[in-house]
């Protein structure tokens, strides 16, 4: 297998790596490679899929369906299969991945390694909750792990950042759906308090809030709450994909532009709310229609901050939103969601509480702001999401994840030499138990 020397980055493009990449097209070719971290579509924002000055294995060509049973909804596929492909193939047959991240470009392996969540975490838990079995290349062996076989390794692999072994394939349970459409209701939330109350009260299967991170004073934390259920009807035509051909200039996301855009976006929804029908991709992956939207942040890229704050921490959340609003750095991309109880993954992000995700263009003042937000999160007993992070410090992250020491021991057992380490695990010192 030839190695390709390349400079590559995560979705945020603020961090880069230079190294050698292999892209096997068969499992036998993958197994013949020296051990190196596996990467999927590189939709993690920071450095989770980077290995600067080292090697990495691109899994996207290992994307075959190994089996599907329409009786049980059990799908087995290679790690490189994308969520969007699953949607394209299985929605016409009445099935959908039970948990879907905000981008369809994410791969099966990536969704497991990050234990991603969707707009239904409060009902259905994280992606890992629907994984039945994982085939790992671990310690030079081809092993199958599940809740029955090597349960602890299985739990360490859900959200395990690819450190317990290379995820080759997995079996996941798909959800049966009545049809290809989504019935979506959108309502305004006039303040943070109302926003959180609406998220708490929502009974819908899918609930998500868009937050105007530029609004201050009484309007601080205002936004639009979207609630959705699967519909029987045929879906409306999908909106056409567009792409961002070049890096946008800096003013594109300057403070006045974002403020004006957000106000407009908020008023898009009439005061009494609105209902509409949408296709599954348009509802779940709204940004996928704009290919390479990360270029809107210009060539310096951007950072995303995502935290979860326990339900009791509303005041802390208010402090975080306030810090963001007064920084003037926020972009229009800000999402507020309610998460349900913690799952099985030892290093999984979701825990019961409110999760807030905000994008910030990479500017001089951005790191200081994000560091402050991380400190506020830690103080409130919350967590930051490693799929998004590019700026945290190791000690505070390790303290946020109580399962860390046990996880590190399991990762070390399968990879004592640390050949699966990435820029993220090195930056945060995750592979050492202390």
């Amino acid at each position, binding site marked *: *297998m*030839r*190695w*390709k*020397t390349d400079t590559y980055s995560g979705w945020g493009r603020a961090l880069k790596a230079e190294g050698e*990449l*292999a*892209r*096997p*097209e*068969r*499992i*036998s*070719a993958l197994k013949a490679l020296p051990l190196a971290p596996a990467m999927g579509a590189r939709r993690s924002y920071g450095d989770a899929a980077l290995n600067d000055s080292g090697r990495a294995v691109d899994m996207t*060509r290992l994307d*075959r*369906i*190994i*089996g*599907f049973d329409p009786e049980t909804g059990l799908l087995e596929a290679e790690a490189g299969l994308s969520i969007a492909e699953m949607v394209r*193939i299985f929605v016409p047959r009445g099935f959908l991945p039970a948990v879907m991240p905000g981008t369809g470009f994410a791969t099966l392996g990536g969704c497991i390694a990050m234990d991603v969540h969707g707009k239904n975490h409060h009902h259905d838990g994280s992606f890992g909750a629907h994984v039945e079995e994982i085939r790992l290349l671990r310690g030079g062996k081809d092993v199958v792990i599940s809740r029955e076989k090597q349960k602890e390794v299985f739990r360490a692999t859900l959200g395990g950042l690819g450190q317990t072994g290379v995820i080759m394939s997995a079996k996941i349970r798909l959800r049966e759906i009545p049809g290809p459409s989504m019935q979506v209701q959108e309502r305004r939330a006039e303040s943070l308090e109302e926003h959180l109350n609406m998220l708490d009260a929502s009974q819908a299967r899918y609930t998500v809030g868009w937050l105007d991170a530029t609004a201050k004073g009484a309007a601080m934390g205002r936004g639009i709450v979207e609630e959705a259920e699967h519909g029987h009807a045929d879906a409306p035509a999908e909106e056409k994909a567009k792409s961002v051909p070049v890096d946008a200039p800096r003013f594109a996301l300057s403070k006045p532009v974002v403020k004006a855009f957000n106000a407009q976006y908020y008023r898009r929804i009439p005061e009494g709310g609105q209902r509409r029908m949408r296709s599954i991709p348009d509802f779940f992956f709204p940004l996928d229609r704009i290919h390479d939207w990360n270029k809107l942040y210009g060539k310096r890229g951007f950072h995303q901050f995502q935290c979860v704050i326990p339900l009791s921490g509303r005041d802390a959340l208010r402090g975080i939103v306030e810090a963001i609003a007064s920084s003037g750095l926020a972009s229009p991309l800000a999402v507020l969601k309610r998460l349900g109880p913690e799952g099985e993954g030892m290093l999984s992000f979701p825990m019961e509480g409110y999760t807030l995700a905000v994008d910030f263009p990479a500017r001089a003042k951005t790191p200081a702001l994000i560091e402050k937000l991380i400190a506020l999160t830690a103080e409130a007993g919350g967590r930051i999401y490693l799929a998004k992070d590019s700026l945290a410090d190791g000690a505070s992250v390790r303290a946020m994840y109580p399962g860390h020491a046990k996880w590190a021991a399991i990762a070390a057992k399968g990879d004592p030499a640390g050949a699966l380490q990435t820029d993220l695990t090195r930056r945060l010192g995750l592979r050492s138990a202390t």
Partner: protein
Amino acid sequence: MNKNWIILGATSSMARALARELAGRGDNIFLAGRDMDDLERIATDCRMRGTGEARAVKFDARKLETFTPLIEMLSDQEGEINAAVFVGSMPEQEEIDADPALVDGTIIDSFTGPARFLTMLAPLMEARGGGTVVGVGSVAGDRGRVGNYVYGAAKAGFHTYLSGLRNRLTRAGGHVVTVKPGFVDTAMTWGIEGMFLVAPPEKVAGDILRAVEKRKNVIYTPFFWRYIMLIIRSIPEPIFKKLSI
């Protein structure tokens, strides 16, 4: 009508992309190659994505004994017989220079093996009165270059063979599409320096299917390679022989 496709060299990423497209249409697919484990996996993938039958079958361009069982199997199928040939091997020219025995293998894999198979298949296609052969050649076959002239020569031979086969099958209602890919993003080109405007295999598969439908004779994919090669072919030999492109 029932359509059968035999795909030689089915583990290549271009072939895989084409097989998925054909599976989506509900055609019967026979995936031929050497790596049976991987072929089985591709066959399952095609069955899961489509409605037709997909089966892994053994084919080795260097083992003539694998040819006859395939021809017999195809003659047992009802309906139209089509073939797509993706086989070929491209050792580095320096490797060949160091070990001239590699010349033979390269020519068998890329030219004489598939040519022999297609010659055995042609009577069956003629008897059925139709069907299409997709022969994947290469822009490397359009002119011999210092960097890979053995592979280029094998592909040039294959192009000429396909042109003759087209002439033959046309009389019986059949057709031959010669496909000349430029740089395609496959395991063969991964990590080679100097690649530009690399096309994804899915794009090539789409171009091939369109060419089959429209009964095109020779296509370059992506299309602009036709013009690049036009320029390269038009350079006078006294100048060309001094270039290293």
